[in-house]
């Protein structure tokens, strides 16, 4: 079993490390610093930390003002509150003027679990994808999360970085370097390409192992960068494998699957299966139970691969 690490804990510690190197880094939170793990930064740099209380709209507005004045603000809360609760503030105060604000949301998707649907962000990528000029990163593990956060700090422009609540297995080691707008190829394969993001990357790897024993060769791509998006990797996958499965812990609408489908339809139509939440809200339960009930497991990816390969033969 690979080591399990929480992305948000890695994020919180990375903030401290970056804060020591760069005095312009400031952090904002909306009364969730113990959960988003920005409390590490708050403790070491109290003057550069602003707890805005339960007021996300105001928080992102303050972040925009700090960015316009040369600071590098990281604003954090749960994904259900940002960009959802403060959509128009992100739109007009950050996205339109392309300000250098880093929105890092934790507790995305249904792996929030028992807190239920009010706290399960399954629409946030659709919202974030709708901002022209935004950078969007959905890391697959804690190592990539730290890389993405450091990349964001060093790169001018607005970012949305989507993290999750539970600990998750490491798929990378310390040598990994995040590249914006580039898919990371985890397995080469010729029969089908599985393009996954976030926690579903681990499930995609599991599915590819199962399928391998049946003689099905899967290419596995981690598509952590949703904006900019590696259209070339999708084109190449469509051309070379002729079948694509996408997997994400998000609604089918407006996330990874719909982006891949748009590109495939535009440049090289091949069968596509989308593993995602199907136009419904979930419920309270343990994360694993929810991932099973709502179809977000290695088994679901495996079945989708078998379906897409059948469609390819027609």
């Amino acid at each position, binding site marked *: 079993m690979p080591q399990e690490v929480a992305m948000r804990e890695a994020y919180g510690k990375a903030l401290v490390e970056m804060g020591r190197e760069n005095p312009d880094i*400031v952090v904002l939170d909306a009364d969730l610093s113990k959960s988003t793990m920005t409390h590490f930064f708050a403790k070491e740099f109290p*003057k*550069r930390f*602003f707890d*805005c*209380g339960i*007021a996300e*709209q*105001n*928080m*992102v*507005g*303050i*972040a*925009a*003002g*700090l*960015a*316009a*004045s*040369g*600071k590098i*603000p990281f604003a954090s809360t749960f994904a259900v509150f940002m960009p959802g609760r403060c959509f*128009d*503030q992100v*739109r*007009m*105060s950050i996205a*339109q*003027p*392309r300000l250098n604000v880093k929105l890092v949301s934790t507790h995305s998707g249904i792996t929030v679990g028992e807190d239920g649907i009010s706290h399960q962000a399954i629409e946030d990528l659709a919202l974030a994808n709708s901002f022209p000029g935004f950078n969007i990163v959905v890391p697959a593990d804690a190592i990539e999360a730290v890389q993405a956060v450091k990349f964001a700090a060093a790169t001018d422009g607005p970012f949305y970085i989507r993290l999750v609540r539970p600990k998750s297995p490491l798929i990378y080691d310390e040598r990994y370097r995040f590249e914006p707008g580039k898919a990371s190829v985890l397995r080469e394969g010729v029969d089908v390409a599985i393009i996954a993001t976030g926690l579903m990357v681990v499930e995609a790897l599991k599915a590819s192992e199962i399928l391998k024993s049946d003689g099905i060769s899967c290419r596995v791509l981690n598509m952590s960068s949703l904006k900019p998006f590696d259209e070339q990797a999708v084109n190449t996958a469509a051309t070379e494998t002729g079948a694509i499965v996408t997997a994400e812990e998000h609604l089918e609408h407006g996330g990874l699957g719909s982006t891949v489908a748009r590109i495939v339809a535009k440049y090289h139509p091949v069968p596509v299966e989308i593993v995602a939440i199907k136009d419904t809200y979930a419920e309270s339960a343990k994360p694993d139970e929810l991932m099973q009930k709502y179809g977000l497991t290695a088994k679901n990816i495996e079945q989708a691969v078998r379906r897409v390969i059948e469609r390819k033969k027609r």
Partner: protein
Amino acid sequence: MPSNNPDSKTSAAHGTPAGVFSSLTLEEMQAVARKLRRHIVSMIGKAGSGHPGGSLSAVEIITALFFHVMRHKPSDLCWPERDRFILSKGHAAPLLYASLAECGYYPPEELATLRRLGSRLQGHVDRTCTPGVEMSAGALGQGLSFGIGVALAGRLNSQDYHVYVLLGDGECDEGQVWEAAMAAAHFKVDNLTAIVDNNGIQLDGWNRDIMNLEPFGKKWEAFGWQVIEVDGHDLSRLVDALEKAKRVEGKPAVVIAHTIKGKGVSFMENKVDFHGKAPDAAQLELAMKELA
């Protein structure tokens, strides 16, 4: 009324040797205010759309700030020590554009391009387009939060600039304004002054009929602000109020400027209709005569 600029020996509009904009005298400011009103009506008339009412009501507020109180350099947009002006009521764009032109940020002839394809003067203010515009606005309620961020950055950097945020009174219906009001007091942001253009009218009618704001001053006080009320068309009192607000320590200050929507054009004054309607050709001619 003392000048805020120690270098200023003259009141020439285009600044001191250092490029810092010189404070004008009361008489000069009154002339500027008349000129700004003509610009506003003519720009909106030419564009065929826009918001004359809430631009005309804030003319003296902006005149006092840009032509007397604020420290700024039209030749150096990124001057770190400049005072920051944030137009939260972004629909008063024509007023800000006219002021920036008269300060020398760009030629006044450019004002005729308002709302045209390719123009730097967008329908609502956009910081990526117009020299001197600090924040993009138009969707109401966001400027005070932004201003707090700018003020906190000044504090972190030990810079002594002051941040001015102009809000509409109708804009204060937005919940975010009060989130920001709470935060500014909590963070003891005393390098920020909010100014409310209290003209009493919003798009659908009088504030008191659409969404009552009263007791308005007491609300700000209860949120921890120093409240200064003033006649928003009296330049001398406005300057005093703004300078008094700047001196407040340990908490933010708000200047509630009592104004008349459409001020200066008889048929626009206190008229709900001219919140967001351009004058037609005959009205434009009449208005320009009144403002001559």
